[in-house]
Structures are given as structure tokens and as C-alpha cells.
């Protein structure tokens, strides 16, 4: 088996047990409603992450590393990453995308999240800058 297959029989067995479960779920999706949209989202998920998002933030990080010397890049990299991640994860709330559905179910509105995100971002960079000055001051 090893020469023909390229790994241990256990490797093959694990695939034969667990992959059919994935195939069953995929077939249920393809046989159900909005099959093509779900399939599109599944394929887009891996492409968008591996070929768009990751190269984009790696490229931005490399540019930041070129602009700042050594570990100083962390004072920009960390607040920027925190702010960006918050923006991406809570985009639906910050941009008010879920507002209509939320109002219909609860009668409440969500407002002011974009301002709050801007304030948090400003605070992150301010804190990072302050830390940089303090550490540089204590070193010299």
C-alpha cells in the first residue's frame, strides 16, 4: 500500500471514514435550495482568504517592515492589525448592514458604531505611540 498510495494504510482508512461525511454534506447542499450560491461561497471562502486577504496583509506588513527599522514596526503593526480585524469582524454593525433586520425584530436601532470604531482606532495608535516614546525615553 505504501509504495502505491504514498502513506500508511491508516492514512487511507482515516480518509475513507471521514471524507464520505463531507461528501454527504456537500451532496445535501447541492441537492437543496440555493445550491449554487452556497457552493459559490464555499469556493470563494478559500480563494478570498488564501489568494487575496493573506497576500494583502503580508504585503502591507512587508511595506511596514521596510519603512520602520527592526522591532519598531510593531508599534504600527499591532494597532493597525487590531483596528483592521475589528473593522472586518464587526463590519456588519459598523457599516449598519444589519440595521434593518435588527430594527424589524427588536424595534431598536444601532447607531454610532462607526464613530466608536474610529475612536478605538485612534486610542490604539495613541497608546502605541505613547508606549514607543516612553520606551525610547527610558532607553536613552
Amino acid at each position, binding site marked *: 500500500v505504501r509504495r*502505491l*498510495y*504514498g*502513506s500508511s494504510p491508516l*492514512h*487511507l482508512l*482515516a*480518509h475513507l471514514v*471521514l*471524507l464520505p*461525511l*463531507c461528501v*454527504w*454534506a*456537500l451532496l*445535501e*447542499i447541492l441537492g*437543496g*435550495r*440555493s445550491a449554487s*450560491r*452556497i457552493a459559490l*461561497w*464555499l*469556493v470563494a*471562502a*478559500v480563494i*478570498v*482568504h*488564501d489568494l487575496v486577504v*493573506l497576500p494583502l496583509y*503580508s504585503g502591507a506588513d512587508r511595506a511596514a*517592515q521596510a519603512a520602520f527599522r*527592526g*522591532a519598531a*514596526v*510593531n508599534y504600527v*503593526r*499591532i494597532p493597525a*492589525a*487590531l483596528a483592521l*480585524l475589528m473593522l472586518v*469582524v*464587526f463590519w*456588519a*454593525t459598523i457599516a449598519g*448592514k*444589519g*440595521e434593518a*433586520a*435588527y430594527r424589524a*425584530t427588536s*424595534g431598536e436601532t444601532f447607531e454610532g458604531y462607526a464613530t466608536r470604531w474610529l475612536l478605538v482606532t485612534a486610542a490604539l495608535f495613541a497608546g502605541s505611540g505613547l508606549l514607543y516614546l516612553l520606551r525610547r525615553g527610558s532607553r536613552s
Partner: protein
Amino acid sequence: MTAPPGPFRPTFWRSPLRGPWLTSALGSVLLLFLSIVIVTGFLSHVAYEPNLRGNAIVPAGADLPLLFSWPTGPTYLYGVTQGLHVNVGLAAVPLLLAKLWSVIPRLWLWPPAASLAQGLERLSIALLVSSAVFQFATGIMNAQYWYAFGFNFVVAHYYGAVIFTAALALHVLLKAPVILRAYRERGWLRPLRADLRHTRPEPPDEHGELSPVAPAPPTISRRGLFAFVRSLQPRGVLSKASLNGDQVRDPDAMLALKVNGADLPLDHGFPARIIVPALPGVHNTKWVASIDFGTVA
């Protein structure tokens, strides 16, 4: 066959932090988080009692067998399990991104598959990454009431979870020896003790797993990376529904007509609302017009 230039060449990947130990450590913490998210997710499916008449959103009979019927206590049962599902899931986002970043050189293997075994494993990894990003994207959008996907969230998130859980179990099973070897060779926590000045690339390994062959000087320590990923973690349409026997008979189950001595407000279900302990909120039907009693399905 030499690799084409660019990401297919090992020298392209220069981060000095990547290596089997880092991926194992990120993966171990992530696995802990994901286990909670997976269990609480499937518990929600059970809580909706999809076997009872009119309750199924995932087509009836096309789901995995339910192992028990949802209890009515403790009253906070649904709140706690689903609070964990959403919050642990959100907290896992930075870990997932860091874990995927740590293994990205493996996407660019040359040749793409050297054997049947590797081809099969890479197919299962494609399913794992795709379903992971899909589950997180749809879950995060749904939690914020953003229904822009154009498909039924419950159905897609359920089957997505089946693909994700099976592919994850397969991945953990196959990688267990690599993870254990990394911990044995490099220490469970030893690489976290090094500050930036003492951060060294992981030694090259004979399996060409992840260690960089041409590492750049480090700009952040491994513990710095972990602290960064951890710092991102926060602390903290249904018109009818069927109830199971325990839910109907529970002493705290009621048809509520008043709240705090006043008639129910219209928003809260006037003239009458079902209240059952530990029941998903949307199954506590508002504006009750009729009730039937009968046998399952």
C-alpha cells in the same frame, strides 16, 4: 522537476517564526476553542427539536441523528451554550488567521501532489480551510443580522459544520504525530520563553514541514505573536413551533398573558406568549393563536 519561481520556491517564505512548533502551538489552542464552538453549535440544532412537527429548518431526515431531547433546565442552558458559541467563535478568529498564516507555504507545494495520499490529504485540507472560512463568515454575519448571503443560514451553517467537523477530525488525526514530535523536540512551552533578542528560527526538519530555509531577521518574538493574537479576544421567522413532552410538562413552562402585573406589550407577544425554560428564544412563540397536542411528527 524544479519549482517555478515565486511562492513555489521554499526560499520565498522568510518569516523566522514559522515552523512545526509554532503551528502546533497555535493549532492546539485553536482546537480547544473550536471544540467548544462545534459542540455548542450542534447543541443548538438539538435545542430546536427538529424532529417535531414544523420545527425542521434543515430538511427533516437529512440531518445527523439527534442523541437526546432538549431539557428545560437549567433555565439559562440555551443562553450559556449559545453565548459560548458566539463569543468563543469570535475569540477564535485571530487564532484561526494566525494558524492559517503559519501554514501558508504548504499551499504552494511543488509538485502540487507527489502521491495519491498527498493528493487526498490536500483535498481534505481544501475542504477544511474552505468550510472554516465559510462557517466563520456566515456565523459572524448572522450574529449581526446581516443576511446578505442569499441562502438559508441555518441550512448552510449546519452542513458547513458537518464538513468542517469531519475535515478537522481528519486533520487532527493525521497531524497528531507531527504535533507531538514538535513538542517533544522543541519543548511544550520553551519557545515562548525567548524574547525578541533570543528568538531563533526553528531548526530545518527532514520532512520539510514548515521551517524557513532562508529566514529573515525576526521583528517579533513567538510570545509576542501569541500575546498579540490573544489580546484580540473579547472577555467576555418562525410562526409556529413544536415542544417536546418534558418542555410541555415542566412546572415553569407557561402561556404568559401578563408580565409584571400588566398585559403583555404587543412587542412581547400580546395576547399570549409561550415561555419554556432553556428554550431558544424564537421557539417561545409570541402572539399565540392556537395550540394543538399530538404525537411526534
